[in-house]
């Protein structure tokens, strides 16, 4: 069966030189596609988790009494929202990366403690996190003050009110906008290519640099892979939104 598939694509490439699905019959290229896809998935999942945490913490900090704390959050948002993520990746990796300490595993090599993958995670999480702060802030503002006051009157501390009342309600309001931003984040992981993170786009390009005849098939792979990845994310988010729906509350009540 496997042999038949390999034979089919080998023949296809021979008959149509611009449709060389080389990864279907050459193991080395196949492994590149799989490892690229895996890196993209890891990068996406880790960045989604960190960016959501940044968003929640940032939105809470925006409600702080201290003007300094609020100013720092505002500055962070303006910087990361208003500059291109591509430039941010370059900045983190080349500018900040130059100052990071290194360690030497064998006495010869100097390896920075934060790898390019690490910088991509940091950079992309902060980028998406800036939008998440604004998204959660909108959700927090949608929770009536009177509801928080009721919690206060019951003895809840500010933190408890935030954790048990404000956040669960704000999340529900935020899900549709969060959905959009996380979709964008998954697509933006391709830009980590600029600091040589071996994610799917990076691997695809190395394949078609070695085999120009594989360019069309690799683009097809890219489109299908991102359609599938984003599709799974959106499906999951919609399912989450439905499961969070409160009977008799908000839209669809």
């Amino acid at each position, binding site marked *: 069966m496997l042999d038949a598939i390999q034979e089919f694509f080998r023949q296809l490439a021979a008959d149509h030189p611009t449709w060389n699905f080389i990864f279907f019959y050459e193991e080395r290229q196949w492994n590149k596609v799989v490892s690229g896809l895996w890196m993209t998935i890891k990068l996406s999942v880790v960045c989604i988790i960190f960016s959501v945490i940044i968003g929640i913490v940032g939105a809470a900090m925006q409600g702080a009494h201290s003007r300094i704390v609020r100013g720092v959050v505002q500055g962070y948002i303006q910087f990361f929202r208003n500059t291109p993520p591509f430039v941010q990746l370059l900045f983190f990796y080349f500018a900040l990366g130059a100052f990071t300490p290194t360690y030497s595993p064998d006495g010869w090599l100097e390896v920075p403690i934060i790898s390019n993958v690490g910088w991509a995670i940091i950079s992309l999480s902060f980028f998406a996190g800036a939008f998440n702060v604004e998204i959660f802030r909108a959700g927090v503002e949608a929770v009536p003050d*009177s*509801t928080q006051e*009721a919690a206060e009157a*019951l003895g809840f501390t500010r933190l408890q009110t935030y954790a048990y009342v404000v956040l669960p309600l704000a999340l529900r309001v935020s899900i549709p906008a969060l959905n959009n931003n996380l979709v964008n984040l998954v697509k933006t992981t391709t830009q980590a290519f600029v600091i040589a993170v071996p994610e799917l786009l990076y691997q695809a390009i190395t394949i078609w640099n070695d085999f120009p005849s594989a360019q069309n098939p690799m683009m097809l792979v890219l489109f299908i892979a991102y359609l599938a990845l984003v599709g799974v994310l959106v499906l999951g988010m919609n399912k989450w939104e439905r499961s969070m729906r*409160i009977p008799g509350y908000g839209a669809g*009540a």
Partner: protein
Amino acid sequence: MTWTPDQPIVSIHNVRKAFGSLEVLKGISMDIMKGEVICIIGPSGSGKSTLIRCINALNDIQGGSISVEGQEVHDENLDKLELRKKVGMVFQQYNLFPHKTALENVMMAPVKVLKQDKAEVEQRARALLKKVRLEGKENSYPGELSGGQQQRVAIARSLAMSPDVMLFDEVTAALDPETVKEVLVTIKDLAADGMTCILVTHEMGFAREVADHIYFTDKGVIVEHGPPSTFFDNAQDPRTKEFLSQIL
């Protein structure tokens, strides 16, 4: 100073409160004994709600003092949790947690704030919902309940903290006329059980029936006060008379 039950449970002395330059309380004093039911009435904007919000420190004050069981409420070093355990509050708009069922609303504060045993709290919460005549509605969400039912959940939620004093801030003002009664009956039951209740209300018939003492406030001062019989039938101040003639 330790408080003993023969002293006022809530003591308000010459309280002043301003929002910016607008002074809403201009020296209010009252003493409330344990088990008393107090109704505060008066025209809109007379500072009634502000006053009871000051009692559990939801609002701060600019002058005077308020103490609950001998504990100064507006003390910088006040343990707010201690105060809120003593004083329960029910709001005009119910303010239930919409993402929690009726039972969860009642259980939340004792479990999360007082860290009480969940099973024990649940038992008590079910009993409280039964007491406010909401048996069978334990698993309903606030959005699925009528205004009157929501307000009774809010009362049960407040009672779950075992307060010594209950504050009611125009709790029937947002309700349909037919559901007002079910909430008033609940409060009446509470009063009959000996709960100290301070109510801001426009329900004059109810005030006359359950209150031990009526305070009439206007423009930030107490104009007149007294037991319901003398207050309603033998008001002295022209402002009280005018208000009562418009409302009764």
